[in-house]
């Protein structure tokens, strides 16, 4: 029983990381209709920036995290302004390929600056743990859940209740009608990319913290978050978060029990679990858990 609760807890922490990555995808997709394959690069960039600020420049860790999120947000908005705004009106396929190109460019930048070797993020959590009764939880997971919770709650508060969130939702629903109401949709686009940059950075930080370490492969986690996004329904922020949590929990449960109860599936089966869950859910609900039907036309 303790094992089970512990796996669930670790799964939720892992799921929170996926949720942050998936939220970045969804925010951009909703506003602009673009699937941003460069999201994984924000994840890598955010983590390496924390290393730069916290370890190389020896700034306090919390400050390094905030700065990394801000810089990554700036990079996101910059990419939108410099590259993507020029291609508005081009075929969606071309825009998506541009984001693929950006992914490779940014990853190349990361390895040129920080190299290929595995680094220590320099977070204060390390491998330390806390005990709650018989339960042993890592500080890293606790902080992941706290930070993700705060950021996600902030995002949803803005999205639901603020004027800016309303402008974002209106733009996603009908761009021209939003413009006719005086909403500056270019600002909405830029802000969406900035938000994606910031939450991607935070995801990267929580992924690379502790024993995991920092290496250029970190951007690959975006691949595992992809099912989270599709599962949630591509254009639903809430769906992205739930999709992330579902996939995180199934992944840790699989890692915990599959070797024991279904060894015939082979080693490391948990790695492909996100895709298994995605396929199963899409078979029942083709538009994801919370997606709108229109998305299917893609």
């Amino acid at each position, binding site marked *: 029983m303790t094992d089970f609760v512990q796996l669930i807890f670790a799964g939720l922490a892992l799921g929170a990381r996926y949720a942050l990555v998936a939220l970045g995808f969804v925010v951009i997709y909703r506003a602009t209709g673009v699937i941003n394959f460069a999201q994984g690069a924000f994840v890598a960039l955010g983590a390496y920036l924390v290393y730069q600020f916290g370890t190389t420049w020896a700034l306090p860790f919390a400050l390094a995290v905030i700065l990394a999120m801000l810089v990554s947000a700036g990079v996101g908005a910059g990419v939108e302004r410099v590259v993507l705004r020029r291609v508005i009106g081009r075929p969606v396929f071309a825009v998506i390929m541009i984001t693929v190109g950006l992914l490779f460019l940014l990853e190349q930048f990361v390895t040129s600056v920080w190299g290929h070797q595995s680094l220590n993020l320099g977070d204060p959590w390390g491998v330390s743990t806390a005990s709650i009764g018989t339960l042993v939880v890592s500080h890293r997971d606790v902080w992941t859940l706290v930070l993700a919770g705060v950021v996600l709650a902030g995002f949803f508060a803005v999205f639901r209740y603020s004027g800016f969130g309303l402008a974002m939702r209106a733009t996603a629903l009908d761009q021209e009608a939003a413009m006719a109401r005086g*909403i500056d949709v270019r600002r909405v686009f830029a802000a969406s990319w900035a938000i994606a940059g910031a939450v991607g950075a935070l995801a990267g930080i929580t992924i690379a913290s502790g024993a995991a370490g920092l290496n250029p492969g970190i951007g690959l986690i975006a691949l595992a978050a992809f099912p989270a996004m599709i599962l949630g329904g591509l254009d639903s922020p809430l769906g992205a978060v739930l999709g992330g949590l579902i996939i995180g929990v199934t992944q840790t449960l699989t890692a915990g029990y599959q070797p024991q109860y279904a060894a015939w599936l082979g080693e490391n089966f948990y790695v492909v679990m996100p895709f298994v869950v995605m396929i199963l859910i899409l078979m029942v609900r083709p538009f994801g858990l919370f997606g709108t039907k229109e998305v299917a036309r893609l």
Partner: protein
Amino acid sequence: MPDDGHEPILAVHNLEVVYSDVIRVLRGVSLEVAPGSIVALLGANGAGKTTLLRAITGLLPVHHGRITKGTISLNGTEVTSLPPPAIIRHGVAQVMEGRRVFAELTVAENLRIGGLARRNKRGLDETYAKVMELFPVLADRKDRSAGLLSGGEQQMLAMGQALMAGPAMILLDEPSLGLSALNALQIRNLIVEINHGGTGVLLVEQNARMALSIADHAYVLDNGKVVKDGSGAELLADRDIQEFYLGVGDAGRLSFRDVKSYRRKKRWSA
């Protein structure tokens, strides 16, 4: 109409609009709207009415359109080709053809969106109360998804959205389109009521009888040009208008081809 000595709230001068750099849709359109008046803009399908509204509110780029000649002024300030947020802050709010409310958002959220562009947020609650008073049916349904409203209610919501910006003037693009006669009449009366509050109206309509019955002045747009203008009463009495837009006169001439050839003759003789 401009002879009352006031600066027109909207003045369009010799406007030319081209789509995709080649399709010229407006060819030298001029018109004026005096403060607090209702001006009707009539014209057949494809005449360029919606295009004119897009040109005024800065929505042409969405359609790959561009103003290639002429000017648009609001209260004497030139605003040609300014983007939509700037136009709204100059006091002009548009209700688009087909209403275009945000179907998945609630009525109240739709109205809040209408107020987003406003600089002075202090008058917002007051405007909201006024809109609710003007359209009591919206007050009853304020937490309902806009997509669930009837066509007439959606038209009211779209008008309410525009009013939330606190405009000096609204542009309405075929508000009676697709509505029952009763609903259209209701919309007509609401337009009059809004206008009585001092808001200027530029009313694009195919329902010419309705539009002319409330217009202080009216223009007829044909193939990208203003071919006629006059007071609402004058145009109601005009033989061509009766024939083309009001469906009175020789029934035999009402087929499209006949009207066209008749128009050609009419132009020659003019």
